[in-house]
């Protein structure tokens, strides 16, 4: 009984925190998205008006397009690269702990610091990246200054900042694969690629799927990279849904519009979250 009381105590603490800091704001977000309020006069219920307003905004389409594009590109880079790094680390016999630390290092940097570091890397004239390109006699790129490369540049930042976490999770999954499977594959004459294809991937299928869904949910909320590096530009090419939400709520003084946009994003993310929950359940069973 005493053990139960302690457990319930911990549970209550967590529930109160979630209720106050997560669920309460989420419920209010939904409520406010259907209201018009200035926080002085009583709010007015306006039905779907806020949703119509943001839907008709010229930046609405580009924001969703950019967000989807960012998510897709982030999956190509941010999903694949950590897996490959984890595979390499898993295969290494020496200096694995050291390299694991090196890979995880960027995660320890505050996101704003990481982003500002890349601001220098991307600097057109003296930035590290163009210096490297110059060393190999390759033409300099405009990085953040071009509509063609700005979004990709943000994806690179995001991938670098989150590489460590993804790699460690994949590495943990890889280390649960019984060594006998690899030995058997080797005895059957399987090379590295065949071992990965026939042993590694099937054995980590569920974690790969879960990570894929989490990655989608996380990258669709991209904000800090465009906010700090491009200001949504050039020519709106990096305006994301959350960036637009921020603009509505804090720069345009239309917090209800911002909430409507937040609800739209929440609905989209809920679909992926539902799939994630289903996959997790299957994983457990």
């Amino acid at each position: 009984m005493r053990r139960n009381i302690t457990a319930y105590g911990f549970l209550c603490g967590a529930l109160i925190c979630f209720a106050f800091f997560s669920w309460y704001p989420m419920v209010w977000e939904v409520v406010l998205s259907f209201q018009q309020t200035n926080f002085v006069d009583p709010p007015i219920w306006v039905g779907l008006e806020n949703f119509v307003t943001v839907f008709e905004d010229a930046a609405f389409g580009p924001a969703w397009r950019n967000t989807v594009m960012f998510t897709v590109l982030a999956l190509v880079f941010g999903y694949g690269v950590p897996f490959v790094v984890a595979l390499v680390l898993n295969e290494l016999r020496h200096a694995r702990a050291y390299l694991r630390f090196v890979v995880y290092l960027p995660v320890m940097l505050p996101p704003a610091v990481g982003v500002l570091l890349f601001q220098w890397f991307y600097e057109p004239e003296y930035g590290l990246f163009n210096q490297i390109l110059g060393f190999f006699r390759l033409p300099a790129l405009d990085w953040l200054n071009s509509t063609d490369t700005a979004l990709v540049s943000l994806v690179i930042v995001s991938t670098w900042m989150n590489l460590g976490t993804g790699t460690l999770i994949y590495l943990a999954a890889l280390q649960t694969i019984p060594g006998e499977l690899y030995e058997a594959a080797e005895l059957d004459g399987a090379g590295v690629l065949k071992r990965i294809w026939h042993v590694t991937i099937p054995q980590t299928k569920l974690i790969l799927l879960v990570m894929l869904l989490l990655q989608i949910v996380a990258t669709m909320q991209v904000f800090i990279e465009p906010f700090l590096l491009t200001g949504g530009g050039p020519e709106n090419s990096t305006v994301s849904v959350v960036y637009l939400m921020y603009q509505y709520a804090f720069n345009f003084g239309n917090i209800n519009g911002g909430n409507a946009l937040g609800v739209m994003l929440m609905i989209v993310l809920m679909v992926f979250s539902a799939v994630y929950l289903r996959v997790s359940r299957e994983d457990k069973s």
Partner: protein
Amino acid sequence: MTRSGYRRTAGLLLATALGLTASACGTDEAPAGDDAQPAAEGSAAGPVSITVNCMPPKTNKAQRATFQEDLDAFQKLNPNIKITKATDAFPCYEPRTFEAKLAGGQLETVFYVNFPNVGRLMESGQAADITPYVGELKTFKDYNASIDIFKKDGKIYGLPTDGYGMGLVYNRDVFTKAGLDPGTPPRTWAEVQAAAKKIAALGPGYVGFGEYSGNNVGGWHFTASLYGRGGDVLTPDGRKAAFNTPEGRAVLENLKQMRWTDNSMGSKLYIDWPALMKAMAGGKMGMMLGAPDVLIGLRNDFQAKFDNYAVTAMPEAKALFNGGAGYMINPKATPEQIRAGLKWIEYEFLTPGKGQLDYVRAKGAGLTVGQPYPDLYGADTPSGQEVLKLRTENANVDPAQFALWAEGSKGIPPKAEPGPYAQEIYAILDTPMSAVLTRQDADIDQLLADAEAKVNALLEKKG
């Protein structure tokens, strides 16, 4: 969930929570005066309590000390008014917390607001109507046109306490190095272009003319340039876009030529105010659009070599974009609190020889005196003349740094922000600005036409 997942979800929730929950905003709250106590509010005869913001931060010791001195002196002078809290959050107006504080009853009775946000707050009813009380202010009748920014439908919603018109900030040292005479800076855009070219020719890293292009500041500077050329962002009734004109085209054409033909603007894109200021403070940028306050900002906040900088009049200016800030009153304030709040604003910001206009004290405290702002009063009014006299007598900065701006801006009419939806319009105008600065093949006519259509659609929706 991955770390990034948590971070992003937390960010999203935080953004929501900021808008929805009232928060005590992590600022130092100084009890204003040793005897500050809560007092009954709303009683005409009894004491009244108010709160104020924009106390200088602890890092700015000199200004903070004078502010505290004023809080004490004001309450001594007005024993019925208690200032129970003075917050020092910076920036003084923070859109990310404003509505949360208002919703949660944490917004100060007297709050600071910069000009770009005034129209929006008036439109949304988030500031008190102070019209019935302004007659009680001694210096109110002396205000120049800056007071118009706080007027809507014949009512007054706030008081400007800082004001200046746009100009051209330049680095005298860079001018000299480029073989230009810092005593005769450019007066026309053609001269700006020629000077920028010479500065950029100094070598790698030198930028002739710096400009913004993101986070709404691109649109803001487009507006400043457009006003200078005699153009307008909106039609007089505020219902249609009015920038797709030869003046609007000239603004973009000029930038495009400097960026791509002359290569005098560098290749870095400045997306916000600190980015451009940092570049200017770095000592290799020749010119940028800016008001006289930029010089003080460069000195105090960006550790620039102050003596190197000067400000001159906006080239070919037909109108000057009005920059500045002021104070508004919490819409939930009682009439007694409004009166008390206005008294504080008058004492601290509007009385020659007191508060921010106490130039004798400012000079003694090592603060800069002599810059030609705040420009609040008509030149011929008693307040205007007194401020000018005190400022001139106590000047401790080189007047030459501001003289060309002061002389060249005389008689040029001020012009305010383009209505209550200025920020939305600036966001739209960011696009043509960033396009001409990032694409050599930018089609200016198309960019202006697209922006015009977007602004018209926005205004139509707003009614």
